């Protein structure tokens, strides 16, 4: 590393950014997670499935949507995170982030319930659910299924 030698610096005043994110229109999704379920939206007019769920269909310009549950998928790709960003360093395990394609044709991100990334493979069938962790955050979980 070509790090420059220690230089004098001035410490800035601390800025704390915590957002209150509106979820009134996607309440079904966030409440579903607490019950262990993962929902996508489907436009009642054109039938398109949206994940991440969106409550407005940009093609039909309609907000007439229904909620559908996603439960089964196949892994499309994955990685195991060793260098965790701020907000995730308290988790001891190096979590595996994966993307799965569901039978409804939606793609979804989740944490693969597997300790060793070497046991994961593309095309591996997974069961999609959600869990609430001890710190109160919820996460989508992919459980490997025997094909």
């Amino acid at each position: 590393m070509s790090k420059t030698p220690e230089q004098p610096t001035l410490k800035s005043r601390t800025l704390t950014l915590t957002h209150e994110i509106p979820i009134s229109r996607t309440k079904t999704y966030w409440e579903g997670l607490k019950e262990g379920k993962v929902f996508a939206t489907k436009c009642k007019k054109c039938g398109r499935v949206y994940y991440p769920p969106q409550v407005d269909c940009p093609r039909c310009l309609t907000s007439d949507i229904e909620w559908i549950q996603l439960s089964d998928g196949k892994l499309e790709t994955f990685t195991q995170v060793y260098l965790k960003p701020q907000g995730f360093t308290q988790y001891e395990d190096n979590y595996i982030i994966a993307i799965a394609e569901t039978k409804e044709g939606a793609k979804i991100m989740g944490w693969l319930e597997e300790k060793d990334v070497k046991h994961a493979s593309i095309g591996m069938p997974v069961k999609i659910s959600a869990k609430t962790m001890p710190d109160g955050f919820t996460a989508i979980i992919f459980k490997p299924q025997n094909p």
Partner: protein
Amino acid sequence: MKTKKFKGIFMKRVAIIGVGNSKFGVRSDVTYPELAFEAFKEALEDAGIAQEDIEMSVVGTVGNRLYDMYPAPLINEYIGLASKGPLRVEAACASGSAALFTAYNAIASGRVETAIVIGVEKMCEVDTQTSTAVGGRGCYLWEFHMFGTSFASYYALFATAHMAKYGTTEEQLAKVAVKNHYYASKNPKAHFQKEITIETVLKSRVICWPLKLYDCCPISDGSAVLILASEEKIKDLGVQDPVWIEAIGFGSDTGSLTRRGDYTSLKSTRMASEMAYKIAKVKPEDVEVAEVHDCFTIAEIMAYEDLGFCKKGEGGKLIDEGQTWIGGKIPTNIDGGLKAKGHPLGATGCSMIYELTRQLRNESGDRQVPLKKYIALAHNVGMTGQYCYVTILRR
């Protein structure tokens, strides 16, 4: 006056008349306006003009790791262009190219005759975890919030899929890092100054499997500045033999990674390069020197393929054959690339043009690529293909 016609629109020709680049690295010795000044001074002296010759200043910076939230006016003030800067441009890691595109369009459309592009980024004033978290918040609500994504994890998702589909190996990825560190060691402005071996990469600690420390670009501070002028202005200034911007192509893709078709290619790269090749009327095989967006080694492999330097899936073979070194088919990232020169987000796109301009002027010393057609290409990606710009230069 010569014009270029694209989609029925006549555009004025635009050339690069001055370039500057600061030393990239952990620059805890300077504030961001001081850092911008380094590249600005060099570019102004290179062009041989003064502040009053510049009509418009476009600042390209992501800026989300700064203590200031509105940095452009303070940069313009510091370099004596306070009354010339109507905007700041942001397109993540492609902010420098987006700023170039903005300035280019202002001249090509006839609105102004000269413009300056200031690409700058300070990333090292916050700690690594904060920087990783800021960078990882590309899709907060549906990705970062639940899963703790980082940029390394995004590109790692592509690496896993590319390796599975095409048999690309960790050794091939490592070879990209070895090449780029080699050229960085010959570039005094690069963040890293040391050569590495395949072993160094393979034995380095895992960041996001399968990507290891040496597969990743560093977190760097840096600036790069470009001065552009119209053909008429060039004549007025008496500039001989400038470097012309033949085309800038653009592309974009979904913000959520889960809405992509696959994870082995960047669609926005294909879109931007097809557009640029069409406007410039050149083919990939005409390009003699390239700067591609190698924020991670897998990104360079995908870029070879998506830009048409080789067939899809054969990027690993291209680096195995040494075709992207000087003397190969398409010398790529001869300045060390993002991987080893460093990747100060807003500066990166401008720094690519800095390097290519100097290559096209035969000013690159022991890193000079032998040229016949004098055609160069810069490929700058924002995030994981959410934005892309491809610029073709010719002298």
